[in-house]
């Protein structure tokens, strides 16, 4: 029977909190481990509690799973506005340390969703203890994103508003002054701010990922406009750098797998891949 424990660990002077899923005791030695990495503004539950379900599923399969909140997020300490990709990478290293200190867990796999996927890639590039990556709708790291992703979003937001203008309902709202102009402006303009320094920084992390010696599983939704390019560029990058990888597209899924069927497919496909990874690591 699997069990769950609330845990905390320190990293860079902050207390990070999470849940450790322990597999049933087996006679075949220490278990393999998965560290779950949530997205930028998420928490250790994942979208629609997907991390909870996945961790329980993987624990039943013999994996020790750690779901934790990055500093400044969820239940962890730290100021919300001081979280950066670097603090997330450092927290990921802290989580691997926690798992490895508890038992000689091997292999350690990082499972990240959305920007947590990008963090997983960067953390694995600088920590040889991470031997596997499961990347759900992973955002592109650095130059893999092509033109700034936010500019792409902005264009989409504009297209959505243009589409709305064709509806009589929108005009009725406009005439009654029921449209919140400030919000519309914010939605368009905020999305338009590319951060070049951040991009250069990510390029350096991506450079280090060229030498990644582990294996990676990428799972993307077929209807996810945010990561269509990411899937393409990650595939090319892995091929060019001889990184062992697999891609799985969930035909109709959106970005965060917002349906029970898509969620099930992402979890089951990952569970099967983890089982194979564990077998490879023992040979």
């Amino acid at each position, binding site marked *: 029977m699997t069990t*769950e424990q*609330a*845990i*905390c660990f320190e990293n860079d002077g902050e207390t990070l*909190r999470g*849940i450790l899923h322990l597999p049933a005791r087996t006679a075949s030695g220490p278990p393999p481990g998965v560290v779950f990495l949530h997205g930028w*503004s*998420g*928490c*250790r*539950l*994942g*979208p*629609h*509690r*997907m991390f*909870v379900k996945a961790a329980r599923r993987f624990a039943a399969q013999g994996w020790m799973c750690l779901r934790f909140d990055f500093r400044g*997020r*969820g*239940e962890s300490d730290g100021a*919300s506005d001081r979280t950066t990709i670097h603090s997330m990478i450092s927290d990921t290293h802290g989580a691997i340390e926690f798992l490895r200190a508890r038992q000689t867990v091997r292999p350690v796999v990082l499972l990240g969703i959305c920007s947590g996927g990008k963090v997983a890639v960067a953390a694995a590039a600088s920590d040889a203890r991470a031997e596997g990556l499961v990347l759900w709708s992973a955002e592109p790291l650095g130059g893999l994103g092509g033109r700034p992703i936010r500019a792409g979003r902005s264009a989409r937001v504009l297209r959505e508003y243009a589409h709305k203008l064709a509806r009589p309902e929108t005009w009725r709202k406009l005439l009654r002054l029921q449209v*919140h102009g400030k*919000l519309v402006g914010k939605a368009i303009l905020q999305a338009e701010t590319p951060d070049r320094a951040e991009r250069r920084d990510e390029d350096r992390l991506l450079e280090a990922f060229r030498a990644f010696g582990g294996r990676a599983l990428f799972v993307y939704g077929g*209807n996810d406009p945010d990561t269509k390019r990411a899937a393409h560029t990650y595939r090319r990058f892995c091929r060019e750098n001889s990184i062992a990888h697999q891609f799985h597209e969930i035909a*109709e899924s*959106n970005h965060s*797998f*917002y*349906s*029970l*069927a*898509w*969620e099930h497919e992402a979890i089951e496909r990952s569970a099967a891949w983890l089982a194979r990874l564990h077998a490879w690591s023992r040979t």
Partner: protein
Amino acid sequence: MPGTLEEQVEIGEGTELLRGTLHRPAGTPRCAVLFCYPLFEERKSSCRPLVEAARHLAGAGCAVLRFDYRGCGDGPGDFEQYAPSDWLADVDAAAGFLIRHAPAIPFGLLGLRFGANLALQSARRLPAAFAVAWEPIPEGRAWIEEELRRKMVREMMTFGRSRASRGALREQLERGCLVDLDGYPVSPRLFRELCGDVPGETGSAHPPVLVVHVGPRDPPAARLAALRDRFSSAEFRTWRALPFWNRIGLTDCSALIRTTGDWIERALT
């Protein structure tokens, strides 16, 4: 907050242990507050503001317990197994735990969205000295309709059209089928129980209640009337902000948290 402690706790016994965090203030607590989380994705999106609210109240001398209901958040079990009647029992269990750990001081509840409904309902049964309701849901059925509409909008964004009308989804639930609400399996029992309205004051024993409307504008008149109708003696406030419980991204809720802390302070004196 300096001197405060956050302790991971388990409530109950057996296989359905509830998981929570007890925020202990520095020194002897002045009051105890039980937080009631909202449901669905609102639980995830409101996680940080509620943690920050608990830390603020602990810094002001309150013992605060946050916990997950069965089938929700870090709680045991699967979502489709449970319904509001189970979650009310969970609120009772958590309240019992908090009162045992912080005895002989005023006890109150704070809830967001459907959690506010559970808090208001529980405040009638438990020895509550106050209750705070952030954006309660006055009409359960209208809320579910809104959630079904949200599902359709998400489908339109994904496929260019919605796959089933609201009527068809409602019919499925009424026929006893499970409906997939953006990754949350809604059972017919959950649907039936969610369709209830927020319970109002009964008799004269209801504790002081603060109802906060959160939105960029004043609440719609009908909504406000529905709430005023049920809570004639409650204090109503509006906090002009975007609904942080259904947004991607982080919202600074410090003004709402401070207002609530100040109101609790006054309710205690």
